[in-house]
């Protein structure tokens, strides 16, 4: 036991994080009912642009007179979905390719891991920027695929390493001598062992995915307007950061809150699931 922090407190933090995340997910699901205005409604482009937070607009309005609260709520849908589905894509790709590389070994492994090294050698922001340029602009679905497609390298490496060691474990060899086909082994012996590290990596990765979405929005290639995502809201609010900070402050807090919650949850999971793995 390395962590000397009292255990109950840790569970408090975990519970709080789960609460925050659940709240955000709920807000995302219920956005159309919770939000006082539509996310793209321009209330009065001359009279109500860039209004500070008030009783009428709790979080203020942006430069084109849209209600920031409504956009933050609706943005939760886009941001969480981009994070979740992007992570899912990365997970499927990374696990798949890591499995193939780790199981096959030899030339296939060298080739796939070369690909992984190549992918890791270019900063991800630039990679996303370049692909957006190549495709001439992407919809939200495309962005999700792209974020996933550039986010699997680390997962592939993780899975490949695990598979390499699992492959030589006696119970896997035993299954082979029983005549188990590869899919059987993957399903019954590899995936159950990979589930824990993958879950931890995915939770952490989802937070990173949301930060990346914000980063590429900042460079102008994120979720397309007028749809609201926390990332493009921060980017939109950048020009008025000094005069109307609320436009980017609140989506920024939403990102920080959810990434923080995801990190805490991932930590908690790792702590909790690890002992059983080593037992």
């Amino acid at each position, binding site marked *: 036991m390395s962590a000397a922090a009292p255990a109950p407190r840790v569970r408090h933090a975990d519970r709080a994080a789960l609460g925050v995340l659940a709240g955000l997910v709920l807000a995302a699901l219920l956005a159309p009912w919770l939000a006082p205005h539509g996310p*793209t*409604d*321009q209330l009065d*482009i*001359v009279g109500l*642009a*860039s209004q500070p937070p008030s009783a009428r607009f709790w979080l203020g309005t942006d*430069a*084109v*007179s849209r209600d920031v609260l409504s956009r933050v709520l609706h943005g939760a849908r886009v941001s969480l979905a981009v994070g979740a589905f992007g992570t899912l894509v990365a997970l499927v790709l990374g696990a798949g390719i890591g499995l193939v590389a780790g199981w096959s070994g030899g030339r296939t492994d060298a080739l796939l891991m070369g690909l992984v090294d190549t992918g890791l050698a270019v900063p991800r922001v630039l990679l996303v920027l370049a692909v*957006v*340029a190549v495709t*001439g*602009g992407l919809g939200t679905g495309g962005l999700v695929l792209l974020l996933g497609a550039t986010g699997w390298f680390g997962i592939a490496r993780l899975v490949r390493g695990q598979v390499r060691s699992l492959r030589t474990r006696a119970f896997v060899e035993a299954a082979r001598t029983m005549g188990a086909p590869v899919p059987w082994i993957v399903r019954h012996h590899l995936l159950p062992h990979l589930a824990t590290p993958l879950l931890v990596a995915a939770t952490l990765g989802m937070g990173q995915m949301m930060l990346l979405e914000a980063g590429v929005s900042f460079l*102008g*290639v994120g979720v*397309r*307007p*007028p749809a609201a995502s926390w990332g493009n809201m921060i980017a939109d609010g*950048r*020009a*008025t*950061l*000094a*005069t*109307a900070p609320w436009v980017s402050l609140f989506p920024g807090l939403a990102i920080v809150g959810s990434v923080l919650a995801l990190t805490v949850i991932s930590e908690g999971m790792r702590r909790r699931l690890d002992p059983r793995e080593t037992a």
Partner: protein
Amino acid sequence: MLRSLPPRRPARRATLAALVLAAALGCAPADPCAGDRCGTLVIAAPGSPASLLPPVIQGALDRDISDQLFLRLADLRAGASTIGDSGFAPQLAQSWRWEDPRTLTFTLDPRARWHDGARVTALDVAFTFKAYADSALGANGRPALARIASVTAKDSVTVTFAFTAPYPEAFFDATYHMRILPAHLLGAVPRAEWRSHPFGRSPVGNGPYRFVKWDAEQAVTLEADTSFFLGRPHLARLVWRFAADLPSALQQVLAKEADAIEVLVSPPNVALAEHTGHLAIHPYPGGTYAFLRFNTKAAVSRAAPHPVLADADVRRALVLAVDRASLAQNVFGGRAKVPPGPMPLLWGWLWAGAPPVPPFDTTQAARLLDAGGWTVGPGGVRRKGGRPLAFSVMVPSTSAGRKQYAVLLQEQLKRIGADVTIEEVDLPTMMQRLQAGRFETAIEAMQGDPTPATTVGPLWESGGEMNFGRYANPAFDTQVAAARSATEAAAAQAAWQRAFAALAADPPAMMLFAPENVAAIDRRFADVTLRGDGWLAHVRQWRVPPEQLTERDKAGR
């Protein structure tokens, strides 16, 4: 490091301190400035230049800098007419005379010198024309030189332009587009190499400022040419600082790390600058106008008419349905007008008596659409024969202002029953798709010359090379031809206004805004005047009163 030392110290220590200070500031002042011949202007600029050699320059920033290094033969006075030669002031040319309507002879100012000491000669002018006319360089303004048949040096200070035919703006074309280049330095360099030739990064010019240094991605420094033949510039030094984008550039000015910024763009930025107290706000007529261009042809098959936008009534209705004045108010505060035609504020003479802007009238717009068979269907989107009134707006991802306009337009057009999607693409993609006709509508911005003749034709005439929407309007074409051949300013003005009225009746685009530019310049600068076609054109007359000089102004002096 630049703080002045406290006074009244023991003499020996003061001497020592002075020595230390002298060492700290480099060396002894080589060129002491006196009175109001001091001052350093630091300009915050978004982006970074590529070359300072005029004929290979593409960007506005590159042009701003190199304009201080290279002169024209004659310069257009602010707001003057481009017709004839009465609006022009001598620069490199001391005088000129028309031998006949097709032959123009300039006499160069014998005092004009290159910064390496060589004289500026007629050979330089002839050499410059050859370079600008060479398609290998692709110089801006090259198409405008098509009617100049030859440029010949008669003697060292006399040079003759021969035109293929007489025309009203011949003098403008002969002088405005070309910055004279040093034949003795560039003559031996093949033109194919000019684009990336080191000369473009350490140019030798003939203008009021000489090149000092260029720190890649960071700054360019110019220094006053104390022997400049048209009078020594007041400001001793010009420095351009390059920022990653406009917000960063603005921050440099707000934080007093730079003295001037060309455009503040948005009302909040203007408010911020006003709020600081050290910045003066300088409005001046902008040279740009922006519009939502309609593609009249289908984006896929380039010959077929566009199923929605080919219909002039639909286009008229869309124009009527947008409250453009409010849009301009939202984005620019009170600092932009909705232009009645494709015209920037720079063409002040055209605004007087211009046709009225079609009013914001959703009732009339709805009536036009109803009459055209576009009825409101499910979801509030109008349909005609099963086809929704839907199209995309292409907008460059790098322009914050145009992106804001796209979002505003989308919401406004939704109210009339048009389903608009926004396509954000980066600039190279946007330009390629415009040129290929692969778009439905696009928000474009156009930088205008002082005369409509250079840009209006190519943009909107049938077959014009920038007529990306393949719009055709014979009535308009006729009036443009008339305007170009008008020999009187008044006749030209009337013809242009008739041309714009013809455009308004059958709109090829929704004119969106013609902004007034607002520069922010530190208050210590006096005699500041800005020109719409080059905001720094008069910078050599700006000055800092001696009592207002700052440490930065005095640094190194």
